[in-house]
């Protein structure tokens, strides 16, 4: 039997191909409607509640969640549940802290990206520049996750090797993103989000059926190692706790989620967004939790040979234990998760290259839409090379990307839009510290030079450092009751 599970039966191939054709169709439709930079980057602010909320959750639930999550659960038990479970508080915090502010920002200023919001808040092109740089690095890291996850899924569906699989998937992603920009992304996000929710609930119920119920699954996993079913799993306790912090607080710091908040056609449509996003994500967490544990239980009872690559937990289960139609639907859901997030990142990265960095130097590029499309292509190539070089588990590459975003965006944008004492100096310092800390700690750990103690997650530590720098510098510069320099319209946004 192949080491990598292949599920290229007629039914699964049909569902997969149908799904890809629908995505391409949405891309073509969006192309005809994308005329301006506002259309390309923020849908021209034309979308309603359900699309905003489902697209916001769908952007967060990526290949990381659908391939990497079960992989981590398979290997470490309940440890990684602290990642996915943090999103219920994470979406709530995002809505309370950012939803209104971002949408009002889009009313008073012609903002198309997060660095636009940073420049408006701090009246600083330096802050804009560093935010754009941080976003670009985060995009490359996170896109790398999607590349790897795509390779695994395409391998399963079409029986091709990992690299070819990644390239096929990326080609489709690149085509519909280049054509339709974020408009294509948001509508496919919605379509994909709906698939992911149904697929997750279905697979959760099927896992209970195959595993003989949750208690049975838990008992078999615990028999191998009781810690795996304990509250912190097989990883160090601080891994679990710092993951919870990073994903709860860092949700609002994810630009692919945050920029969706610019896009609603009416601010009153944000009302139920927190509940819809959090609820939809919670349903998808059922797959993350159940699939990895069930696969582990099956290997512990001898029903299946141990997996050499934990990232194959999801696809192996689909191939060997799931009815074809359900497998096809879940694989479509997997591709959905990867592509929706990939699209968001490509748009973010393109905005950083074509708008944010040039504007930080006082330059404006003509024909932004054309150059954004070209930048999108470049990002696909670079992130593919990055992913293949890193050779890290899908989920761990995702955590790296998440941490890079969180460290840059949480202090500067999330706290900055809710705290008038935040200064431009603090914003620049925090962005640089977050970026450097994240990369330095990650590289030092990879080459065994230095590891953050007690298993704490690098991204969480980098985010805490960036937050501490932002707050400390601002507190030194502005006493309680004092405010940083704000334009009158921005002040209204912060006080609304």
């Amino acid at each position: 039997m192949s080491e990598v599970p292949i599920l290229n039966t007629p039914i699964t191939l049909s569902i997969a191909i149908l799904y890809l054709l629908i995505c391409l169709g949405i891309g073509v439709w969006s192309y005809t409607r994308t005329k301006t930079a506002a259309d390309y980057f923020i849908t021209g602010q034309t979308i309603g509640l359900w699309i905003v909320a489902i697209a916001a959750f769908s952007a967060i639930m990526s290949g990381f969640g659908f391939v990497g999550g079960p992989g981590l659960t398979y290997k470490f038990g309940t440890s990684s549940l602290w990642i996915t479970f943090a999103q219920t508080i994470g979406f709530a915090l995002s809505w309370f802290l950012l939803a209104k502010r971002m949408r009002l920002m889009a009313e008073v200023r012609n903002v198309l990206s997060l660095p636009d919001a940073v420049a408006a808040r701090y009246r600083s092109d330096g802050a804009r520049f560093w935010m754009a740089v941080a976003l670009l690095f985060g995009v490359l890291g996170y896109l790398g996750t999607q590349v790897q996850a795509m390779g695994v899924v395409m391998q399963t569906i079409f029986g091709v090797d990992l690299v070819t699989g990644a390239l096929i998937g990326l080609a489709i992603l690149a085509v519909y993103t280049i054509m339709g920009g974020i408009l294509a992304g948001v509508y496919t996000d919605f379509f994909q989000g709906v698939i992911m929710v149904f697929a997750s609930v279905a697979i959760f119920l099927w896992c209970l059926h195959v595993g003989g119920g949750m208690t049975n699954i838990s008992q078999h996993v615990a028999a191998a190692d009781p810690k795996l079913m304990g509250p912190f799993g097989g990883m160090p306790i601080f891994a679990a706790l710092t993951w919870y912090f990073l994903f709860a607080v860092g949700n609002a710091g994810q630009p692919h989620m945050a920029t969706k908040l610019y896009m609603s056609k009416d601010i009153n449509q944000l009302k139920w967004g927190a509940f819809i996003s959090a609820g939809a994500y919670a349903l998808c967490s059922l797959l993350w939790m159940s699939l990895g544990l069930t696969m582990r239980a099956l290997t512990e009872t001898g029903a299946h040979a141990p997996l050499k690559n934990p990232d194959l937990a999801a696809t192996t289960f689909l191939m060997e234990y799931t009815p074809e139609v359900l497998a096809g639907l879940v694989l479509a859901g997997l591709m959905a998760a990867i592509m929706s997030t990939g699209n968001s990142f490509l748009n973010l990265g393109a905005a950083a290259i074509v708008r944010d960095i040039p504007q930080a130097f006082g330059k404006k590029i003509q024909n932004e839409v054309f150059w954004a499309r070209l930048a999108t292509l470049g990002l696909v190539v670079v992130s593919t090379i990055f992913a293949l070089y890193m050779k890290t588990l899908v989920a761990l590459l995702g955590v790296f990307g998440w941490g890079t975003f969180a460290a840059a965006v949480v202090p500067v944008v999330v706290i900055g839009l809710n705290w008038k004492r935040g200064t431009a100096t603090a914003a620049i310092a925090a962005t640089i510290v977050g970026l450097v800390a994240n990369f330095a700690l990650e590289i030092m750990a990879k080459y065994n030079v230095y590891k953050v103690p007690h298993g704490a997650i690098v991204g969480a530590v980098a985010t805490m450092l960036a937050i501490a720098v932002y707050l400390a510098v601002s507190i030194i510069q502005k006493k309680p009751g004092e405010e940083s320099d704000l334009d009158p319209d921005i002040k209204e946004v912060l006080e609304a």
Partner: protein
Amino acid sequence: MLKYSGELLLVATLAMLLCVWLNWWVVFPLFMILFIVVYLAMGAERKGKLGPVTSILWVVGTGYVILFYLLIALYKANPAGMPKTYILGFPPATAVLIYGIWLLPLLLGITYALIFDKWIIRKEDLERLQVHSWRKKEKESISIKG
């Protein structure tokens, strides 16, 4: 609290970092919860007041403290041994994580919707901000030039 929210967040953040370096994992959740509550309060406040959000902050903050420390107590009672009982499919400490810590924050999503019109964004906020609307300014500028 809100006047010193920045200072409180800074203290909570530095305390979390200290806990990491000193391996004080039992204390860490307390500072993390403090951070989350103050962070949430920053987003929910209007002109220095919390209004209807005060009660949900108390519920979530207290709920989190109880759940985290119940989880820790159950874990410490049997850290590496085979679970003796299962609650809805999971060992007791894990059940607290899954049925408590995971699901408690859904209350916040419901709260947000319930207080949206009275507290989060009001009609007068939108009217005040209309003055600054960039689209309106652009139209006015075009009609003046026209």
